[in-house]
């Protein structure tokens, strides 16, 4: 892994990779959306069940983004590697975006199903807290001018957050829950009909690839920005 962690090599390798990844994400999202709209309406939820296909993958991607961000931050802190710092920095706004998307689509779904735009349910609340964690991370990064110092300070925050997230999750769960339980990754197989499972799987993979596409593009931009700044400093 570390052999590819050289910024120059990363730029060379990731450049041609991006269009392919973007195309795959686009195809999967189109297929997933097509399947989502042609799936039969749910016998209880009617057509609103289709919100699931854009809501659930957003939530999964948001959590994956935090894990990847904390992992990159830890690598950056331990190995002092600028590429890992850039990866952690650029994952945060994407994660915040997917978290916000999950919250908004969940809210749109909650209105017809639960009769309220927002309920103080465990899953919703912990996602709101996740959004605040992302925002705090981004704010801390922006507040510290020195790039390496900012990277290390935010890495500490990301790790503290990663340790605390399961506790927050548990405590909020203990506090109140209305949200439905886990229905995909459970003992005894998924509880969801295949006609819903396939579009969900396509959308989940599409979201994941979309995240990776955007992430790589953002890391590339970050590296180019740093080079530009270094050149400007050199010229000044």
């Amino acid at each position, binding site marked *: 892994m570390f052999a590819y962690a050289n910024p120059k090599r990363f730029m060379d390798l990731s450049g041609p990779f991006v269009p392919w990844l973007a195309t795959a994400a686009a195809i999967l999202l189109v297929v997933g959306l097509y399947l989502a709209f042609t799936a039969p309406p749910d016998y209880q939820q009617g057509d609103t069940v289709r919100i699931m296909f854009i809501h659930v993958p957003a939530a999964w991607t948001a959590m994956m983004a935090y894990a990847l961000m904390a992992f990159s931050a830890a690598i950056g802190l331990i190995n002092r590697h600028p590429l890992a710092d850039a990866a952690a920095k650029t994952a945060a706004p994407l994660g915040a975006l997917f978290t916000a998307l999950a919250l908004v689509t969940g809210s749109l779904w909650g209105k017809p199903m639960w009769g309220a735009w927002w309920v103080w349910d465990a899953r919703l609340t912990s996602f709101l807290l996740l959004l605040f964690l992302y925002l705090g991370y981004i*704010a801390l990064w922006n507040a510290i001018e020195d790039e390496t110092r900012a990277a290390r300070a935010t890495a500490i925050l990301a790790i503290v*957050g990663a340790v605390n997230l399961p506790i927050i999750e548990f*405590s909020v769960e203990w506090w109140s829950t209305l949200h439905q339980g886990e229905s995909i990754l459970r003992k005894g197989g998924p509880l969801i009909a295949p006609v819903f499972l396939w579009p969900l799987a396509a959308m989940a993979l599409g979201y994941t690839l979309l995240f990776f596409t955007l992430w790589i593009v953002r890391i590339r931009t970050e590296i180019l920005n740093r080079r530009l700044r270094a050149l400007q400093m050199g010229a000044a």
Partner: protein
Amino acid sequence: MIALLSRDMRLAFRAGGGAMLALAFFASVAALVPLGIGPDLRLLARIAGGVLWIAAVLAGLLSLDRLFQADYEDGSLDLIALSPLPLEAVSFAKIVAHWLTTGLPLTLLSPVLALMYGVPVRGFLPLIASLLIGTPAVSAIGAVGASLTLSIRRGGLILPLIVLPLLAPAVIFGAGAVIGALDNLPNGALPLLAAFSFAALLLSPFAVAAAVRLNLGS
């Protein structure tokens, strides 16, 4: 370590130290809530645990900037870092000092406020116990935020954004213990709160020390 602890406490209690100010802040937040909600004692008794917990967290946050900021600005933090005492121990001593000057006084004041909120007697013990057990976590996790925002000029604004989501479990278990007692329901809030607090006290000195080192540029 003891010397550092007693020095921090002396500084906090002397003029401009802010220990008394945090306590006054706690009391005034608690006094403002009934003005916004209305004087219905039944309602107030029900929300007292939550209100006092939130006021305690805010009061703890308010006084966090003096944890490292003053020492950082006048250079004594550099001297403390140079001493043979490991920074982790320094962080722990400072967290304990912060708790002794904010969390503990708040806890001691809370029965008076609970009385004013009309909390029945069976809610008193859980309230005091939850504040006593839980406020060390506020000091410990708050110290992580304070040390991370040490060199930022407007750190006071970022600090709450960083720390408040991390403190959600403390508020949930703390207020939950009081509500559970009011409803005469057995619940595991206090042990869970104790576990959270213990873990926070144990782990955060390491994060604080790393952040202080980073901000001192060593």
